[in-house]
């Protein structure tokens, strides 16, 4: 059920709040190719939320334009525009008087889908976001954990299969363990659905983990750099970006690749060497070597069969 994805273009998009000396978003120009995740990241007050809300016109543009598949958002009817965009916020904003099922069914109902089709879609989505279609469907938001509420929020935004998703710190209020799991599931979902996603966070690690491209906004809503995570880590455009991604950027770059990306050495299966799954990131593999005081590790496949070995230098190369 891979849906159509839309290309999103910010063209000199500017927001000047009345009574403010500086714009909140200043001539922002960038293109998010169809089917990619663009993460907007930057310090608090950098204009990330403002930039996001310009797209679904919760905040009106002051000047410039934003186009979805070539059509200006200003040329679209407000309701049509918004129904074609999935919107997820940190505070989730589930409707407390509606069950999980009713929450998810909101947009399909507005679109006049048949009961049968809505029911099928709700069950499918609950499955997709990792909730129990039988039990969780009839529950009210107050009966769910924060992580479960966020899953419902995601399912609700996906309900009418919009080609574009806007997500404002969706995992911001969730504890690190559940958060990491939601991030993994989000990536799995995205591989399945292939939406165009604009994802706001102020956590650079989350940006590196999730983004196909990262847009770094600085105070005053100016774009500091727009690039792939690897290039931002390898070649920060300026001092601000270098500072923002942190002094440990070389280490962060290791999270972008897994042992599977290395040319493994044929190994003699020495006993006592750590055995690490092939899907492990280079950073986590390095952590294993450091923790266990070894120079070399054995890479194993899902079944635990050795595939080869890698040295510390291989990881850092």
């Amino acid at each position, binding site marked *: 059920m891979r849906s159509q994805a839309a290309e999103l273009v910010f063209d000199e998009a500017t927001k000047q709040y009345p009574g403010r000396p500086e714009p909140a978003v200043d001539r922002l120009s960038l293109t998010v190719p169809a089917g990619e995740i663009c993460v907007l990241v930057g310090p608090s007050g950098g204009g990330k939320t403002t930039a996001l809300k310009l797209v679904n016109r919760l905040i009106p543009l002051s000047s410039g334009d934003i186009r979805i598949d070539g059509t200006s958002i200003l040329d679209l009817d407000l309701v049509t525009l918004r129904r074609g965009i999935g*919107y997820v916020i940190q505070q989730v*904003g589930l409707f*407390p008087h509606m069950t999980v099922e009713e929450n998810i069914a909101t947009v399909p109902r507005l679109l006049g889908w048949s009961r049968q089709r809505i029911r099928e879609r709700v069950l499918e989505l609950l499955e997709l976001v990792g909730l129990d279609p039988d039990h969780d469907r009839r529950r009210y938001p107050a009966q769910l954990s924060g992580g479960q509420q966020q899953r419902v929020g995601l399912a609700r935004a996906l309900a009418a299969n919009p080609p574009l998703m806007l997500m404002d710190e969706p995992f911001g209020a969730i504890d690190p363990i559940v958060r990491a799991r939601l991030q993994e599931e989000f990536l799995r979902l995205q591989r399945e659905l292939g939406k165009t996603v604009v994802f706001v966070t102020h956590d650079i690690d989350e940006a590196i983990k999730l983004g196909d491209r990262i847009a770094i906004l600085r105070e005053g809503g100016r774009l500091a750099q727009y690039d792939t995570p690897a290039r931002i880590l390898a070649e920060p455009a300026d001092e601000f970006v270098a500072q923002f991604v942190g002094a440990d950027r070389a280490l962060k770059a290791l999270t972008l690749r897994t042992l599977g990306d290395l040319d493994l050495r044929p190994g003699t299966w020495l006993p006592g060497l750590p055995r690490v799954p092939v899907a492990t990131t280079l950073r986590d593999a390095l952590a294993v070597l450091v923790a266990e005081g070894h120079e070399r590790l054995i890479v194993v496949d899902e079944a635990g069969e050795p595939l080869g070995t890698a040295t510390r230098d291989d990881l850092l190369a």
Partner: protein
Amino acid sequence: MTLADAFTPGTFVDAFRFMPDHAGLLLSKTAEHIELSFAALGIALVLALPLGLWLGHRHRGLFVAVSVSSLGRALPSVAVIAFGITLLGVGFWNNTAALVVLAVPPILTNAYFAVDGVDANAVEAARGMGLTELQILLRIELPLGLALVVAGVRIAAVFVIATATIAAIAGGGGLGEIIVNQASYGLAGVVAASLCVSALAFLTALALGLVRRAVSPRGVRRA
């Protein structure tokens, strides 16, 4: 002799005897009382409810809502009726107008705060999903705030039923006609009519209290 001097335990016995003896009179006056009260309440609802809900939805006009409410409390109904006599003359509409003035503030204020206080994130999510402003009001804000809206109607209803008693002064009918006319109906009649007013107010409060509980949204209602 003042009313208090005349008041003995026997008065209540007399009052309860008065009831079956003058059942027809009490019933017709009670019917007038209800008619007057409900007319006023209905008009107040039509005027205050949409306005309060819309102002609450826009989060505008807090000042209007609050000053209307304190104005309502400051204006003595007798004064409004007296003023109304000069405008509308004596009778049903004059009294209705006075009671409407009394009923509008609690309805308007409660409707305003009921909608104004709904979780801003739920409203933003709804707007972001493409609900129209009217859909946001009717499907999200109103259901979540309805219990508070009904609470305002309940306050207004009790005010109106109690105050409709003084309508008799301006020829509006209702149970007040008996209460202000001890000369004709005796103390027993006055007490009997007062009991009818109290019962009416009590039953209305009870009924609207039940409505209020019934419309508290599931999933939000506290155990």
